[in-house]
């Protein structure tokens, strides 16, 4: 069992940045009007913000971090931990976190490293950051989480192109023994092929063959350096595994749905998330969505949804349950409480 609790990490603020370029699924030429209506109804996704060539996850996260530090009135010299979670880093090496440490002007005594996770990355990243904070050895941390998923998509693949958007976020965490968080983390690599970029790593290096496009079915053209998604397998996995993971966490904490103010899920697909919500018996008003305007933003979807939800209202106290699930396969849930959470509005870059 990978469930555990930690004392000493307070989440003080969250910021999110999306590229200013918008792709509307109403303009997507590979689907008919009937398919479009069914697509929007099922996925909930009407538009996405997409990065232009040359814009990186690091760029979006740096902007979020700058905005958040200003909003919190934190000095850069106070940051002693920087974690970057992404599956679309700026370079294969060095780690993007270290490049960002310099770009943000953080001190050299800042511990910086990357975590390679996608949809589940925010919950995993929080668990690692919170664990390090709980030691008492770190006072203030930045958790940067984001992805430019569209860089690996093929516009001619209607099974992936209309789903994903890009986003980079920053979460500020500080040492405070009054705060306790709970986690339940899981993984199953037997499902690795459900979401995969087949070529480009050491297992299958890029060759001329990697970039040869092939039409697998009408409207589904891609090459081996593109993202491949088996939507039915991901759907089955998510509705099978996410609810028991969340229920187990609630049980361990001796809490019920009534003890939670908001369940914030990875924004994958409206129908899938609604199926999970109904299985968990959460009322709709406790489960916010950002799929309509941002699509599936991979690792960034939970913090982006937190910002979208909490930048519009005062947040004296919130009891939050976060649930993430996807590529890996990897999934997990987290419970935390926040007070006066600082959330500047979603930024455009």
């Amino acid at each position, binding site marked *: 069992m990978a469930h555990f609790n930690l004392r000493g990490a307070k989440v003080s603020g969250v910021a999110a940045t999306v590229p200013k370029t918008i792709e509307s699924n109403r303009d997507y030429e590979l689907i008919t009007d009937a*398919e479009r209506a*069914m697509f929007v109804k099922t*996925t909930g996704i009407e538009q996405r913000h997409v990065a232009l060539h040359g814009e990186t996850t690091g760029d979006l996260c740096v902007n979020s971090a700058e905005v958040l530090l200003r909003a919190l009135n934190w000095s850069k010299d106070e940051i002693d931990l920087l974690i970057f979670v992404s599956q679309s880093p700026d370079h294969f090496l060095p780690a993007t976190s270290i490049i960002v440490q310099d770009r943000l002007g953080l001190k050299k005594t800042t511990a910086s490293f990357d975590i390679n996770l996608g949809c589940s990355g925010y919950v995993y990243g929080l668990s690692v950051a919170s664990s390090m904070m709980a030691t008492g050895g770190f006072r203030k941390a930045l958790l940067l989480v984001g992805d430019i998923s569209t860089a690996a998509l093929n516009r001619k693949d209607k*099974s992936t192109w209309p789903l994903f958007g890009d986003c980079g976020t920053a979460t500020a965490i500080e040492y405070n023994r009054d705060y306790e968080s709970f986690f339940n983390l899981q993984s199953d690599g037997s499902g690795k092929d459900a979401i995969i970029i087949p070529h480009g790593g050491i297992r299958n290096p890029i060759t001329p063959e990697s970039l040869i496009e092939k039409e697998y079915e009408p409207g589904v053209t891609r090459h081996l350096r593109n993202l491949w998604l088996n939507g*039915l397998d991901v759907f089955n996995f998510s*509705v099978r595994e996410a609810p028991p993971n969340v229920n187990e966490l609630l049980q361990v904490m001796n809490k019920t749905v009534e003890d939670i103010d908001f369940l914030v899920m990875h924004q994958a697909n409206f129908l899938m998330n609604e199926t999970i919500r109904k299985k968990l018996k959460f009322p709709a008003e406790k489960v916010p969505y950002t799929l309509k305007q941002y699509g599936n933003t991979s690792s960034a979807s939970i913090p982006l949804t937190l910002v979208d939800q909490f930048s519009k209202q005062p947040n004296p106290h919130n009891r939050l349950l976060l649930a993430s699930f996807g590529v890996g396969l990897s999934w997990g849930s987290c419970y935390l409480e926040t007070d006066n959470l600082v959330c500047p509005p979603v930024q455009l870059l």
Partner: protein
Amino acid sequence: MDTIEIFGAKLEQELDGIPPGSIQPTTNYREIPDWSSMHALILIALAETEYNVALTGEDLRKCNTVQDIYDVIKSRKS
């Protein structure tokens, strides 16, 4: 477990825009107008939420008619 007629009616309701009574036990689900992977997701979600049964893509590949799908759900329900 619902009868096949009720299952068919629920499927029609979820799929939207399908004339009432057009889904029969003998209907080949792939021939439902504009059938796509989105319809398959709706069907899988229906099985999960209404019957607490997991239907996989492999299950759907093996099925042809609405009756076939109903039988898979019913066998797992029991």
